[in-house]
Structure formats: structure tokens, C-alpha cells
């Protein structure tokens, strides 16, 4: 391969190693468990951002409904944990013991049929991936086979996020309503609320995130990744190269959604509840900005972007809550207008040439080869 591409691949690898070092070693050593748990929560959003790099950055499909898949994953996990927390012994004061408390408050007298299989952990874990993937498949098949794309797809996914929120809030007997599914305690008897458990869950979350990044990296560096770029670039032409564009879009949308859902499940485990406020229109579009700030074409950038925006949000909301929306709004505008390739783009366009210049100055005389302008960011 060309020097530029190899260069790029090395860069991505270095970035990946640095991220791994940061979240696996530096942050756990530097922060107390409360702060680390907060970082763990941010990292669950990074799953969504990684998925968005796949479907938005590389394929050009902007989904404004990724919160739905994050939520579906989170809810599948929460349903299992809630059932475990609602044992007959724990809920003997209810009029119907053995069902989740919010069902009892809503005069339900038995567990709804779709809750029953969630008594099993293997089922719940499979559902975390499969349920969102199936929803994404149905939506994707319907949309992409009919060649609905661009702004239309964005608006329809946003409508889906609205539908999902209304549904969860409206059917509170089955879903816990606006409060969500709360008061989760143990996973197969292991108390997830202790500091020790939080440490372990944090590292599980990190490993899954790094794994998702590697999976995404594998997909993008295969020929499929290049087809995705081709689709973003000239969808029509790809058809005349003999590819069924719809199939590829469905695949990448399902993959992005499944990755988002894993993030949702990890959110539930680390934070201890799941609610519709992580599903709707606003969280969904905020997750887009995480990826956009970091760089929609960069997996590493997306993770960094997620951490930075969320850190800024927490910092701002603590000291100047009223300024946060202005800052967030400005961020949206700046990223769209001035930095469409985000921090990763700034790095490869501004910082990297500077470093290379220093580097080549030091080595001048040894060899005269100057690396030409860097290829666009991965």
C-alpha cells in the first residue's frame, strides 16, 4: 500500500493504543470511583459514537435515532436485573408479589408475556444485541430497499425516537414509564452497587468498547469499508458496479445499532437504571455531536469527542448551567460550519504536518524525503 495509507494505519493504531492506555490505566489510577463511574457512563455513549462513525461518517447515513438502540439494549439488560430484584421475598409487601414494583403500582397482576423470557440471563444478553439489530434491520430494509436516504432517513429515525419515548412513557405499566426501570441491585446475586463491582464493570465496559473499535476497524479496512465510502460518495455508481447498495446499508446500520445497544446495556449495569430520557430525540442527536466533535471519520476521534463533550457538559452544568446550552449549540454550529472533520481532522490537517516538519528538520541530511500532505483522516 501507499506510504500515506500505511502512515494512516499506523496513526490509527497509535491512537487506539493511547485510548486504551488512557481509559484502562491512567483514568483508573487518577480518579476516585465516583468520577471513574462517571467516565464509565460517558464511555457507554462512545459505543453509539463508534456506531455513528460507521454509518454516518463512512456510509453517509445520518441516524437521529441511535438513542432508540442504546435504549433497547439498556432496557433488555434492565428487564433482567429488575426481575432479579423483584423476587417474591423482596416484594412481599406488594399486592402481587414477585412482579416489578411499577407493575404493581399500575394494577398489573401478572408478568406481561414479553417480560417472562427475561428471567434468563443468557436470553437477556442475546436480546441486548438481537432486539436492536432486528429493529434496525426492519427499519433499514424498509428504508434502504426503497432508497430512502439523506435528510428523509434522518427525519424518520428522529420520528422513531419520538415514537419510542412516547410508547415507553405511555405504557408505564409495562415499561416503568417516565421514571424508567430503577432500583436494580444484583446480577446473579452479585451486588452491582458496590465500589468493587463498579470497578469491574468499568473495565468490562472498556474492554467491550475497545473490542467494538477493533471490530469496526476490521470492517472498515476490508473491501466492505471501501464500498461504504463509495456508497457515501456515489451511491448510484455502486449499483452499476454490481452491488446491492441496500444490503450494505442495512448491514452497517444493524452493526452500528448493535454496538450502540451494547453501550446501552453497559449503561444500565454501571448506572443502575434505564429511563426514556436516554432514548428520545435530544439524547439521540447529542450522541451525533459526540461523534462529530471527535471526527466523524475517526473511531478514536469519536471516543475522544464523547469524553470531551461529556466532561465539558458536566463541568459547565456544575458551574454555569445556563451557559451549557449556548456552548452546546455553538458546538453544533462550529462543527457543521468550520470543522466538519472534527478534532481528528484538526489533528491530521494542522498538528500532524507541524510534527512532521519538526521531524524532517531534525532528520534533514539523512534523507531528503518529505512526506507529502497527509491523506484524509481515517
Amino acid at each position: 500500500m501507499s506510504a500515506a495509507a500505511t502512515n494512516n494505519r499506523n496513526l490509527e493504531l497509535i491512537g487506539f493504543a493511547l485510548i486504551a492506555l488512557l481509559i484502562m490505566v491512567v483514568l483508573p489510577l487518577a480518579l476516585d470511583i465516583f468520577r471513574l463511574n462517571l467516565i464509565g457512563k460517558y464511555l457507554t455513549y462512545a459505543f453509539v459514537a463508534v456506531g455513528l462513525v460507521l454509518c454516518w461518517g463512512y456510509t453517509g447515513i445520518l441516524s437521529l435515532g441511535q438513542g432508540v438502540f442504546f435504549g433497547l439494549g439498556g432496557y433488555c439488560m434492565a428487564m433482567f436485573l429488575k426481575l432479579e430484584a423483584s423476587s417474591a421475598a423482596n416484594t412481599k409487601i406488594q399486592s402481587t408479589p414477585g412482579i416489578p414494583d411499577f407493575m404493581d403500582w399500575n394494577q398489573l397482576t401478572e408478568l406481561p408475556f414479553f417480560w417472562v423470557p427475561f428471567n434468563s440471563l443468557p436470553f437477556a444478553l442475546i436480546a441486548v444485541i438481537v432486539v436492536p439489530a432486528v429493529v434496525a434491520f426492519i427499519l433499514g430494509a424498509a428504508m434502504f430497499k426503497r432508497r430512502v436516504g439523506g435528510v428523509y432517513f434522518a427525519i424518520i429515525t428522529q420520528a422513531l425516537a419520538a415514537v419510542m419515548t412516547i410508547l415507553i412513557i405511555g405504557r408505564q405499566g409495562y415499561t416503568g414509564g417516565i421514571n424508567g426501570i430503577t432500583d436494580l441491585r444484583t446480577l446473579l446475586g452479585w451486588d452491582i452497587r458496590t465500589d468493587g463491582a463498579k470497578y469491574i464493570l468499568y473495565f468490562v465496559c472498556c474492554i467491550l468498547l475497545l473490542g467494538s473499535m477493533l471490530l469496526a476497524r476490521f470492517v472498515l479496512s476490508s473491501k466492505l469499508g471501501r464500498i461504504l465510502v463509495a456508497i457515501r460518495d456515489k451511491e448510484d455508481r455502486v449499483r452499476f458496479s454490481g452491488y446491492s447498495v441496500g444490503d450494505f446499508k442495512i448491514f452497517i446500520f444493524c452493526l452500528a445499532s448493535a454496538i450502540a445497544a451494547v453501550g446501552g446495556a453497559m449503561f444500565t449495569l454501571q448506572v443502575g437504571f434505564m429511563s426514556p430520557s436516554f432514548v428520545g430525540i435530544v439524547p439521540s442527536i447529542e450522541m451525533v455531536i459526540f461523534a462529530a466533535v471527535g471526527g466523524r471519520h475517526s473511531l478514536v476521534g469519536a471516543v475522544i469527542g464523547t469524553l470531551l463533550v461529556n466532561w465539558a457538559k458536566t463541568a459547565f452544568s456544575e458551574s454555569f448551567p445556563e451557559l451549557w446550552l449556548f456552548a452546546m449549540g455553538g458546538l453544533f454550529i462550529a462543527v457543521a460550519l468550520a470543522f466538519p472533520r472534527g478534532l481528528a481532522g484538526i489533528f491530521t490537517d494542522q498538528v500532524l504536518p507541524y510534527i512532521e516538519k519538526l521531524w524532517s528538520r531534525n532528520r534533514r541530511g539523512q534523507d531528503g524525503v518529505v512526506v507529502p500532505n497527509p491523506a484524509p483522516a481515517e
Partner: protein
Amino acid sequence: MVMGYSLGELSSIFAMQAFAGLILFSVFLLMALGLAIIFGQMGVINMAHGEFMILGAYMTYLTSHGFQTYLPGAYAIYFFVAMAIAFIASGAIGLAVEWLLIRHLYVRPLDTLLATWGLSLIMQQAFRSIFGAREVGVQLPDWMMGALSVTDVIEVQINGLFVMALTLIITGIVALLLFRSTWGLQVRAVVTNRTMSGAVGIDTRRIDRLTFGLGCGIAGIAGSAFTMIGSTGPTAGQLYIVDTFLVVVFGGAQSLLGTVASALTISQSQSTLEFFLSGSMAKVLTLLIVIGLLMLRPQGLFALKVRR
């Protein structure tokens, strides 16, 4: 007897639901008009459309206070003044936004979506800082209060009727502008073939700016009308935005008739379903039906079939 109601009662209920649906239709249509013009013309979805509407509502609120304090005698006509102010305020900010923001992003419609979302956040916070987080309402002039009794069960609110009439008039004006004015001719030319329009001497940038401004101005009027039937808060714009997008997309870009038809379909099905189901389920069902229909006809209800 159906579900415990007599036929007479049922037809009255349906008439009332239909009337409620018509008010919803007016709100949808007023909001969608501006958005449809902008989307049809430039393929841009303005996510801050709801906030332009709320701006119009706040302008109306301010005007009503102005009249109450300084011109209590002329309060009966304050609304018409307020409407003009709302139009000018929203329109002017729209022009500025087009110049500062939108025109740089025509080639990247998805980024416009993000940028206008950012704008909506900023506007929301600005409203909150200036007017407070609480919802505000306006005092209706006397002639707009009360209801007309059609039969002993059926009553129609005068303010509802007024909003409907206003919707009709504004839709008519927009139609006239689009199909009878030079601006309209130029807009339609640009939509059909942007490059060619530029070549024959149409200033496409100016047309874009005017269109965006006009679309935002109409949102302002919609917000003004909105104060007649509800109160206004900083985030009220977001409540209707998804419905409005769907109205526009469902109607098919570039078709005024499509926007009207789709606003009618969506509002009527929602208010009719509301009678049978809870409000939230009616909304879910309506949205799902619209999404389903869009899959069958992605180009919308009234799209022209043209060679691409």
C-alpha cells in the same frame, strides 16, 4: 348502539373530534408551510423552525403587554399588529441566519440539520434567559372568547375558528406568492434547475435568502396564532417539530397541495384515533402509519415524476 353511545351522540362526538382535528390541522399547516417552502426550495430541513415559531409567540406576548399598558382601548386589534411584528422579527432573524449559516452548507444538507439544531438550542436558552422558564400566555381580546353553539352538544370555540380562518388566508397568500409573483416564478425556476436559473440571470443566492426569511417569517406568524389556543414556553417549539417534519416529508417536497393534504391526513387521523385510544397511543399509531406510508411512497404524496 356502539360502545354504549347512541348514533346521535356518536356523530356529535365525531363532529367535535373533527373540529379538534381541524384546529390541529391549522397548527400543523401553519408550522409546516414555512418549513415546506424552505425544504422544497433548498432541500434544507430547518431544525430551529419551532424556535422561530416560539419567537413569534413571544413577540405576540410582548405586543399584547404593550397594548395593555399603553393602548388598552385598541386591544381588540392588537393581534393583527402582533402578527406583523412576529413576521418581521422571525423573518429578519431568518435572513441573518441564512446569511451567517445556511448558505455555507447548501452542499451538505445533513450538516445543516446539525447546525440548525445547534441554533435551536441557542434560541431556547435565549428565550429562557430573557422570558424565564415559565410558560406565558396572552389575554385574548373579548371578541375572540366564547363559543358558538351549533347544536346542543356541538360547540365551536371562536379562537379556534379564528386560527382556522387565519390558516386559510395565509395558505392562500403563500399560494398566490408562489404561483403569481415574480419571486414565486423564480423560486420555481430555481427548484427545477438551479444552474440554468443562475444562467438566465436569476440571483439564486438572493432567492434562497428571501425564501429562508419568508419561511421563518411564516413560522413567526404561526407562533403568533399559536398564542390564541395555547401558552408559550422556551421549549414549546420542540413539541410539534417532529409532527411538522413528517407533514412536510409526507406531503412531498415542492408541493404546496401535498403539504395541505398531508397536514389534513395526519391531524385528522390523530384526533380521530385519540377518541379510541389514549392520546399517546394515538400519536404513536399516527407516526407509525406515516412512517409506513413513507416507505411505500418515499417521494411523498404529491411528488412530480421527473427524469433524474
